[in-house]
């Protein structure tokens, strides 16, 4: 390439091969949505962007792996499981929340602010597909953030466990459970964050809105825990996405994290409704947005 350019600059022979028509494949909807999804997933971790955009995702990933390393270290020293595969996702609650507050606006506000949407929607990309690809990328990014360290914990755990082959099998089942739970948590948190982020083109505003959405109802839970009856206490965790997840985990994995009484299935319904509602909201949002 450089030699051809230098020829031109020297005023020598100009090799203008002219315009060539494209006769290759033009792929369909699935390819287009996948391309946008992968692009957004890379964007979430700052790949293909400036060094500045890589700093924050890098810090959060560092924290995530740091926690995993500590968990492995404790286990190999003392033999006790300080952080289980399931509990790991809860431990990561605040870092994940910050990750959402920064990355969700990154995925959608940038397109709104730079007015890139007309370029997308003047191509064979449906508006709903744009919304779905973006929310899928957000959910996957959160899951990857959790799955990497979980894998590290599993590798450490296999060597630390003393139960032989059956112990390793048991370890693997626990690990799969941890991955599945991380996926569920990622789906709920990612789905909630995206419509909140898409409302404005200002990233800072979006970030504040996301954080407050997750925190604003926590006092309610504290008050009800202190003053409410049994039923109220068992139901109140539905009002906040983070505590909703605690309740759901208690019900699915029969852990004793929180008291949800007989209302476990309600937590499942609540989570499904939340994810469905938020994705629908995001699709509606992009149906309206000007192209």
């Amino acid at each position: 390439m450089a030699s051809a350019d230098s020829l031109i600059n020297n005023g020598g022979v100009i090799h203008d091969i002219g315009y060539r028509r494209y006769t290759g494949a033009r792929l369909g909807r699935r390819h287009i949505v996948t391309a946008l999804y992968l692009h957004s997933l890379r964007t979430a971790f700052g790949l293909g962007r400036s060094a500045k955009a890589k700093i924050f995702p890098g810090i959060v990933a560092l924290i995530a792996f740091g926690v995993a390393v500590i968990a492995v270290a404790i286990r190999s020293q003392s033999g006790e499981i300080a952080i289980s595969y399931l509990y790991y996702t809860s431990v990561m609650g605040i870092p994940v929340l910050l990750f959402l507050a920064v990355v969700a606006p990154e995925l959608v506000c940038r397109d709104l602010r730079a007015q890139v949407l007309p370029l997308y929607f003047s191509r064979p990309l449906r508006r709903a597909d744009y919304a779905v690809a973006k929310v899928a990328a957000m959910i996957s990014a959160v899951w990857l953030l959790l799955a990497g360290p979980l894998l590290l914990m599993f590798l450490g755990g296999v060597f630390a466990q003393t139960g032989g082959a059956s112990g390793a099998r048991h370890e693997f089942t626990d690990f799969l459970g941890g991955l599945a739970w991380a996926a569920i948590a990622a789906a709920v948190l990612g789905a909630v964050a995206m419509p909140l982020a898409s409302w404005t083109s200002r990233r800072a505003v979006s970030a504040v809105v996301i954080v407050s959405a997750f925190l604003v109802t926590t006092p309610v839970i504290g008050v009800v825990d202190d003053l409410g009856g049994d039923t109220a206490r068992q139901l109140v965790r539905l009002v906040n996405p983070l505590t909703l997840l605690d309740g759901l985990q208690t019900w699915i994995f029969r852990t004793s994290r929180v008291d949800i009484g007989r209302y476990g299935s309600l937590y499942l319904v609540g989570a499904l409704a939340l994810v469905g509602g938020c994705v629908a909201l995001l699709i509606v949002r992009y149906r309206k947005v000007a192209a």
Partner: protein
Amino acid sequence: MQTRALTKHYPRVTALDALTLDVEPGIIGLVGANGAGKSTLIKILLGLLDSSGGSVRVLGMDPATDGEAIRARVGYMPEHSALPPDMIAAEFVTHMAQISGLPRTAARERASEALRHVGLYEERYRQIGGYSTGMKQRVTLAQALVHDPDLLLLDEPTNGLDPAGRDSMLSLIQRIGSEFGISVLVCSHLLGEVERICESLIAIDAGKLLRADRISSMTQRRDVLVVEVDEGVEQLFARLNEIGHGVRRAGRGLLVPLESDDTFDLIMGTVAALDLPLHRLDQRRHGIAELFADPPEEASHGVG
């Protein structure tokens, strides 16, 4: 491309009012004042807006039902800058090619090629945020071109460019239309730009068609020379009239029909013979602007 009684109402204004057009392939200029309905027309052609009435065909398809098929074969350059500043130009154009349905490797190749065609080959690995306005406009054009469309819709492509930038953007568009074999619809509120590069012209105002025709049939009269002298205009006018040219007065200068290259010499000779200080001698084509010099009656209502 064809429209029949195309109408678009917004809640408060009528942007397009029973517009009927037949457009042949080639470079087509779409001119009209700001708010005349140019952008609205483009968005309907892309299937981004639904029309309120009438019918449209683009590349033989209906945007309302085959929007995706049309958008796969049409390139669109919006009026406003629409680029993410923190992306590398080559990556952005590659991404846009993929969104148009091109496989990854083909998208990469076509992106480099499109950026080369718009003259950004060496700068293509820089971040868009560091580009000048002209370079950004070129990237926007490259992303419209990258998937090898059959039709390019350019909304005010020279917006915000300096005169040199305008010139190179216009000649680039002309090359795309003539050498690349892609039909181009150029939107502009500047008639002068459009008449330079277009083969045919559509003028709309307040959503109504003023005139649609080939440029050649609009500018049948021959070129003229503009002559300006600092003093003695009357003398020169009288002298040139004697020689027998259809000289006309225009402001401070004179307009002389350009019949052959000799006309230059003749004027120079006459000016020298009268010993007048020559201020300006320019060749000018009869502008189609003159065709729209008197705004038609019906243009005075509608979209403001």
